[in-house]
């Protein structure tokens, strides 16, 4: 579904990502891991159009989406979450999730002002509430965004991303900032999302989560692809072990 081809990005004299290529299969959970400074976030930002690559391409179902703007990506069925959250703190939890369905509903201002979108809105509300329950934050249905904890907001963001009915979901360090039990819940959630047929690509530090849910893993080190394969082969790969733990002197 997603093909990354020879992506390279330099910032001044520093090459953050160098000639990285891989493919994400439809319906799979695909993870990008690597030690700190490996270039995971830069790679992620290259795929999501935040940065434009110095060279290389990103293809979605064969279409070139390199450097696409976020709203164009959304229209192509790609949703993403953010490591440090981008939640609209001026709205309620439910409204945040409803925002995710933006492309699936008519959003004209005049229609809105004349009260003609009442019924569509009611339907959106129900769907959003259902999504919130699905990601495990159903009890916060009537809460305002400012009243929610970091862990809950992270899951809320996923609900919002799912509201767009995406074919590809990009998760930016979903476990960052979460404690053990929250991470556990997040792992189960991602597994469930994948089981529902959504292709997932995540960037993550937490090894346990990655190993337990990923169908395919790409390991980056210092901007280059070090290894790729399933969980078993990657964790046994000596180069990967060296990159993380340092070689024995």
């Amino acid at each position: 579904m997603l093909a990354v081809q020879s992506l390279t990005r330099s910032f001044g004299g520093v090459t953050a990502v160098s000639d990285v290529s891989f493919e994400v299969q439809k319906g799979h959970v695909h993870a990008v891991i690597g030690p700190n400074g490996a270039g995971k976030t830069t790679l992620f930002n290259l795929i999501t159009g935040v940065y434009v690559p110095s060279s290389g391409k990103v293809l979605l179902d064969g279409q070139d989406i390199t450097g696409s703007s976020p709203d164009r990506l959304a229209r192509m069925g790609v949703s993403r979450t953010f490591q440090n959250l981008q939640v609209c703190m001026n709205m309620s939890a439910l409204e945040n999730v409803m925002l995710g369905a933006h492309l699936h509903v008519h959003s004209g201002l005049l229609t809105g002002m004349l009260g003609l979108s009442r019924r569509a809105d009611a339907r959106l509300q129900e769907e959003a509430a259902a999504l919130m329950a699905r990601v495990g934050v159903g009890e916060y249905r009537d809460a305002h965004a400012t009243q929610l904890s970091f862990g809950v907001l992270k899951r809320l963001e996923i609900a919002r991303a799912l509201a767009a009915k995406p074919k590809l979901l990009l998760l930016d360090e979903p476990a960052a900032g979460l404690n053990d039990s929250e991470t556990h819940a997040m792992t189960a959630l991602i597994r469930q999302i994948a089981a529902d047929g959504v292709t997932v690509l995540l960037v993550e530090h937490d090894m346990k989560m990655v190993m337990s849910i990923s169908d395919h893993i790409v390991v980056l080190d210092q901007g280059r692809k070090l290894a790729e394969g399933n969980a078993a082969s990657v964790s046994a790969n000596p180069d990967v072990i060296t990159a993380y733990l340092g070689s024995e002197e």
Partner: protein
Amino acid sequence: MKLPVRPSLLVAAAILLVLPLALPNNYTMDIAIRVALVAVAVIGLNVLMGFAGQISIGHAGFLATGAYGSAIVATRLGWPPLLSLVAVALTCAALAWLVAKPILRLKGHSLTMATLGFGVIVNMVLINEVQLSGGPDGMVVPPLAVAGFSFGKLGHWYALAAVVLWCAIWLSLNLYDSPGGRALRGLHGSEVAARVVGIDVASFKVRAFVVSAVLASVSGSLTGHYLGFISPSMSAFTHSVELATMVVLGGMASTFGAVLGAALLTVLPQLLGGLHGYEAILFGLILMLTMIYLPRGIVPTLALRLRRAR
């Protein structure tokens, strides 16, 4: 069971119906009418500033364009006032669209400066183009007459102003809870998030600008007919700041907050005897203190307290 009409709208209608009975004399009635008319513009500005988070300190420009446009079309072209009002409102919409498209690409202070520039340019044109606008001496506005019925008495004007205000409230409340309104509020909350869910941020900002301009234009046109006389001071920077202060004080994004802000900041200067210097001190203080201690404005802060107490 959901009522077809929101309860708050019914309450608003009730208040508007009962209010004239509580107003002791013509002076207070006059103030009520002015409040209602300016509140329409403030509700519009609230859509731009409160919902979408785009600060405009040049909106008096649209108010004045509405007033002068209506007056000029009615006197020079002899069109019936109602038709003039609609024509001018549509013109303001087009003008807003033209102005907004380029400047809404700017962020934060740059946008604010551009809106200021707009207001200043309108002001300059009204002062200098004496042939068109009567210059600094202002111009007379013919009374409002619709289908032969002339709005002469205070009572007529109150009824009209109340109806127009109620409609503006209705439109704004509807917008708040609609997908479009949510898109606006979303882009205020986090532009990054808004883009990621597919919201065409630039387009929505322009549309909010247009809506706010149209409401300001209608407010201006009606005010012109009501006062019978308009001058370029209507488009002055201080007037734009007053409008912005009303939104900020009452509550950004709150429709009733906008009305409250309009009411408070029209009535207070009257109580102070309208001394220009003191008015400026008051407005300046209110702006600063509100943004420091009550950044959400009065109504949302109260709403938050109530929500927390529950």
